[in-house]
């Protein structure tokens, strides 16, 4: 590595903060900045409140939502928890059934498991071999007592984009609310909650060049009465999420959303070009399998399995690259990716996957370095294999 940092190819895990975002955040910290508590009535409080509400407008604009339909959370994990636990518990007298997919993020699956302990039933939908959920499968799973459907927009491991509009149409036929985890799609594709017709939508700052520790939950106007809070103590955010608002995080999130709204199409074209080059560079190795649908996907994620290779060995051999074998949230685990297993990949292939994720600052030389390094190590490890 000769003293240089590895090439960063893990934008799906997190993104660096844009310098303009960092500048906006630093304005909200010190004595000469906007450091007040937005709940305070005095000048400093009102000044902070103004910054918070400006950010709410910026974040809401990214998903084409009315600002008042957005609340701040600590990130997509909390947004997902609030959407799922809050909806289900609020609707428990009406029904105790939820629908989600086996390929969802753990921040959706674990709240669902929690609800099962509370007596709810959860249907976990299978995807097809390309990671897509047919709206018809949702229709078949809906029951009279279904209180929520939760389907992610872009998958964090393989990048496939679900047809949320079609799934929402099915949900609306039965008046069942739909929650969408958009952590991996916000700022990457056009997002319009009115067009998607979802009732709840989670997104987070640190996937779109904003800071870690701040996210948002959109809720459609009709949802307010049927969302039970998880945190209490002050009644902030319309009683749905108590706690002093982190002004610097929120200000940064707002600016990141504003920048993403202007840059996402250019970012996507840039990532698409680099991803195509990466795939063309890796394919000649042979035994390289693309995981997930080839075209219905976000531009920046390329997930591939290498036959005859153990994924951790490949990852650890690639010290000049920063990338993941799967979700960074579970990569401490020794288990093969449950997402790839759900796609029908066998254990060996599920263990042999790498997730390359590209972003705004990815460069051609990063991709060329990745192609050379992966080619070298796949050949070396295959030569050592039985």
């Amino acid at each position, binding site marked *: 590595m000769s003293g240089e940092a*590895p090439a*960063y190819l893990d934008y799906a895990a997190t993104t*660096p903060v844009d310098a303009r975002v960092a500048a906006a955040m630093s304005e909200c910290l010190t004595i000469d900045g906007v450091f007040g508590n937005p709940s305070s009535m005095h000048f400093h409080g009102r000044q902070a409140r103004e910054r918070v509400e400006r950010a709410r407008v910026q974040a809401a604009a990214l998903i084409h939502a009315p600002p008042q339909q957005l609340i701040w959370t600590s990130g997509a994990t909390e947004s997902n928890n609030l959407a799922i636990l809050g909806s289900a518990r609020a609707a428990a007298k009406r029904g105790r059934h939820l629908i989600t997919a086996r390929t969802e993020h753990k921040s959706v699956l674990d709240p669902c498991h929690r609800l099962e302990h509370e007596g709810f039933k959860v249907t976990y939908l299978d995807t097809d071999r390309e990671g897509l959920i047919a709206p018809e499968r949702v229709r078949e799973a809906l029951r009279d007592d279904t209180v929520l459907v939760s389907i992610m927009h872009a998958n964090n491991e393989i990048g496939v984009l679900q047809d949320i509009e079609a799934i929402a149409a099915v949900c609306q036929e039965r008046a069942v609310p739909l929650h969408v985890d958009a952590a991996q799609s916000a700022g990457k594709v056009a997002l319009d909650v009115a067009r998607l017709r979802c009732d709840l939508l989670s997104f987070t700052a640190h996937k779109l060049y904003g800071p870690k520790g701040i996210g948002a939950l959109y809720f459609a106007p009709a949802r307010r009465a049927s969302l039970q809070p998880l945190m209490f103590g002050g009644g902030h955010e319309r009683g749905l999420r108590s706690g002093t608002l982190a002004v610097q995080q929120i200000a940064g999130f707002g600016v990141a959303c504003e920048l993403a709204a202007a840059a996402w199409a250019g970012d996507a074209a840039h990532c698409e070009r680099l991803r195509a080059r990466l795939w063309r560079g890796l394919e000649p190795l042979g035994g390289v399998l693309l995981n997930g649908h080839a075209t219905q996907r976000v531009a920046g994620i390329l997930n591939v399995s290498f036959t005859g290779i*153990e994924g951790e060995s490949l990852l*650890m051999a690639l010290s000049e690259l920063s990338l993941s074998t799967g979700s960074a949230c579970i990569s401490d685990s020794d288990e093969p990716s449950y997402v790839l297993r759900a796609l029908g990949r066998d254990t060996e292939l599920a263990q042999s996957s790498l997730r390359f994720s590209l972003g705004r600052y990815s460069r051609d030389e990063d991709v060329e370095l990745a192609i050379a390094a992966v080619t070298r190590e796949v050949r070396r490890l295959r030569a*050592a*294999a039985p």
Partner: protein
Amino acid sequence: MKAGAAAVPAGAPAAFADPLGPAVRALFADLRHAGDAPPGAARGDAAGAGVAAERMVSGEAGREQRGTRVRFMLRLAGERLLQVRYRAYGCPYTLAACEWLAQRLESTGRASIGGPADWARDLSVPPARLGRLLVVEDALTAAFAAADKTVTDS
């Protein structure tokens, strides 16, 4: 993306250090005993005295589906171990342990090889990965059993 903080600072917390540790990292980076042994020939002195026919034996354990598969190949002349090679599919600890064992077996022989607990200690293998070393041990044990059997048979 370039940052000026690639090197691990002295005294850095373990989470920032290379998770493999220096010994495993060095072995994993240089798997010089991986692969098949080249075909050998009978050896002896010039007069042909003391000729012991070389033979290859191997032992294998594990399955790719379980995450680890190892094959050891031993070249022997009588009871003398001449060469050790291996093929392995598994995590970096598995590959490093195979390489380390191959080096030790060729330099010091079978007697001082110890067992998985010793290997884990010497290579700083985390307890969660001890199961992988048991597969390595099974493969090595199978290879030695094959070696002992061929000595007996001959």
